[in-house]
């Protein structure tokens, strides 16, 4: 089973590239006082909120909803 970090990066990379995807995860982890590798499913709400905030200026909400669903499903 992929970690939450890996799932988020896998979902975001096709849209914003690997570097920005990684930055996105690290930023979220920092904002809740964790490292990216320490993120787990209990952090999903904070992570989703942050991903939505970061992506809403650059992508339609349908894309963001789909990405978040992918992250939750883990594929």
């Amino acid at each position, binding site marked *: 089973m992929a970690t939450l970090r*890996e799932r988020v*990066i*896998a979902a975001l*990379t*096709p*849209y*914003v*590239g*690997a*570097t*920005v*995807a990684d*930055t*996105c995860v690290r930023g979220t982890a920092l904002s809740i006082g964790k490292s990216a590798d320490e993120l787990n499913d209990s952090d999903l709400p904070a992570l989703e909120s942050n991903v939505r*905030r*970061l*992506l*809403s*200026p*650059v*992508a*339609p*909400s*349908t*894309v963001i*909803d*789909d990405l978040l669903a992918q992250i939750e499903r883990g594929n």
Partner: protein
Amino acid sequence: MSAQTSAPRARGVITSGTYLTAGVLVALAAIFSFLSSQMYAGTLSDGAYTAAYWYGTLLQVLLASVVITVALKIGLNQRVGVQWLLVGSGVASYALGDIVWTVLDLHMGLDPYPSVADVFYVLQYGFFVAALVLAVRSYKDLTPVRTPIMIAALVGLVLTAAVLMFLLVPYIFPAGTAELGFWGLVVSTFYPLGDVLLIFSPALALSLVIRQLGAGRLGWPWWIVVVGAFVFALTDTAYSYADWAGSGLTATLEMGWVVANLLFAIAALVARDAYRVR
């Protein structure tokens, strides 16, 4: 990097409908290129010349409608939708300017430069700079934007100095109102400066921002917009010089604006696919 996290290939994202539509638009532009060369060569009959003239003008209307349609489909309640509507409004302003230009030049026998058409051409700069600035700002929480903006501003200042030194001071300003007329001097000064400060520099800033996305698909349409903006700025500046030099419009210059707006239309089509939920 695993295959799961790799950036997408264009073939998997861009739909056949986009390739087909873009192909049709490129073909229509190629037809105009041929017609334009015949117009400038003076080989067309009066009727054929009028038809070819309007063909080019209506092609711009078609390109504008493509961008605006995509923007409306994305939705104006989405911030990216607004960004694309601004791009589309810029192309539409250009198309309106072309309609006015065509009527003045073709049907009223008036010199269309400068004229009411320039109101729409100038308006286009406002829409483009708003679109480009919004696009840059939209990435501010995802990637660093301050350095790209500073680099673009610096390059913009250098190019502004170059435009002043090599175009405005030696050619446009000495011609003054006596040769160009008041509005002629105003627009002949505005266009090259606007091309550098309102089109080229913001486009450069955008390119430096989206390059940080690597192969991420959200950057694809903006890359095409950036190329279109560069083509537009180059064509416009060349026209300012050509107008002063007395050579006026040429078939190549005409195609520069067509290619720029064609690129904006193709960018919108690519955006539609890039924003599509898989």
